[in-house]
């Protein structure tokens, strides 16, 4: 009972302290409106369709064959057609999301970026990439289980192989010989993708303060993954509280510039980020 309580409280705390990995994530090029009536209707229709239709119809949308691209290439999209078929994520919380977007923007420029830049100045890139690999190796259970939950046995096997190879020959995960030598790619799966795989739509967009862009589904996904993450079970207080922020700073140091690029190339950065996040997640769910 005590342990469960602890886990719940810690999960809650992590939801607050785990910062903008997602913010800088879409490495795309790549600021306030109410979606028009028809767009909302299309969104709702898509959500209802996604929620009600079983897995089969979701899968039938995208041809399984990797060679044959999605319908976008077969039917040259006339602008009007492609708009109806291109999904955009519902955003009923837009006013609040915009506030949090602004908060995250400030957190990034005032806190995260300066710290990450300083860290970048001190620690060489090879080391920082190594740290990233190390954490990635640690979170193998998350990817492993989610591959399994998506009936992707090959992926599960790949992750197991990667864990074994990288832990032994890669110095507890610092290096990635699994990829370099054996061409075993990281199977980037998470619980949000698993839920999406089984037909659950994103529902709506949420831009969490500090946590960054997400959706209702992906928020549950994030919480679910916490249970699979070995770092949840570190009971040494100082280490526990240091791990995520440190990982965040390390990751950001490798991604400085992405968020700035997004802002620079966007007319409305809030919408740009929201849409990039949505497309990115949809693509990840579609991909194996």
């Amino acid at each position: 009972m005590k342990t469960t309580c602890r886990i719940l409280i810690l999960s809650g705390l992590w939801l607050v302290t785990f910062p903008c990995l997602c913010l800088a994530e879409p490495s795309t090029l790549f600021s306030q409106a109410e979606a028009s009536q028809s767009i909302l209707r299309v969104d709702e229709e898509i959500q209802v369709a996604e929620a009600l239709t079983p897995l089969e119809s979701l899968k039938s949308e995208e041809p399984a064959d990797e060679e044959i691209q999605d319908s976008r290439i077969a039917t040259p999209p006339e602008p009007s057609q492609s708009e109806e078929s291109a999904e955009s994520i519902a955003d009923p919380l837009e006013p609040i999301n915009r506030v949090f977007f602004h908060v995250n923007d400030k957190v990034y420029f005032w806190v995260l970026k300066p710290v990450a830049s300083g860290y970048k100045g001190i620690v060489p890139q090879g080391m920082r990439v190594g740290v990233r690999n190390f954490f990635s190796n640690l979170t193998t259970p998350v990817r492993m289980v989610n591959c399994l939950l998506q009936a992707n046995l090959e992926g599960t096997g790949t992750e197991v192989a990667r864990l074994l190879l990288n832990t032994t020959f890669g110095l507890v995960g610092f290096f990635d010989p699994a990829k370099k030598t054996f061409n075993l790619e990281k199977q980037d799966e998470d619980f949000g993708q698993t839920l999406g795989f089984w037909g659950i739509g994103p529902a709506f967009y949420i831009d969490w303060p500090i946590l960054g862009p997400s959706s209702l589904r992906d928020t549950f996904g994030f919480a679910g993954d916490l249970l699979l993450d070995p770092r949840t079970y570190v009971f040494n207080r100082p280490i526990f509280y240091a791990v995520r922020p440190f990982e965040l700073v390390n990751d950001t140091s490798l991604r400085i510039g992405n968020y700035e690029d997004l802002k620079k190339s966007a007319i409305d950065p809030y919408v740009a980020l929201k849409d990039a996040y949505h497309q990115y997640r949809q693509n990840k769910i579609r991909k194996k």
Partner: protein
Amino acid sequence: MLEVLMRPIDLFRRTAFLLLILGMAVPGLAGEPTDQVKQTTDKILSVVSDPTLKPSSKAEERRRRIRSAVDERFDWEEMARRSLARHWAQRTDEEKKEFTRLFGGLLEQTYMDKVEGYSGEKVQYAGETIDGDYVVVKVKIITQKNVDIPVEYRLKKKGSNWLVYDLSIEGVSLINNYRTQFNSIISGSSYEDLVKRLKAKATQK
């Protein structure tokens, strides 16, 4: 002897023709579209890597060359049309021209900034899928930090040229992204407001 050679060629042609009729996308490795994309990319990368063009005094010359290479391959009007989507038809010809110019300028500027930051990333061509006049050329960019970035160029055939009308990075389509932004702005305020913001963006650079 020529006749003997012609038969298998005929057979191949007929099969390919059949496949096209059946509407199947014909997967290929390096075909004409990939070659054209490669040509343009190589041209641009050679400009960016050229040591004689590195000094800031040469910036104008460098950009001019990159711009001309990009203009050969990117269909600005098609991109503008798709990004406005259903708002395009309502525009006058003058407005369409203006918008194409503004949006093309924004894209070009963004691309220019990214490309000038090129520092030896490897570009791998990972195949193409042709479907009639449309093609998807898959590219993988391998950064120095050993991250693979999957990029997809979507091209449409115009005459003998394949022209890019969309670019996806990690599954995020550029045109879709702008379409969402533009639609949000037009629905929220007006088309004029969008044009104003585009113009403001251009002067910002």
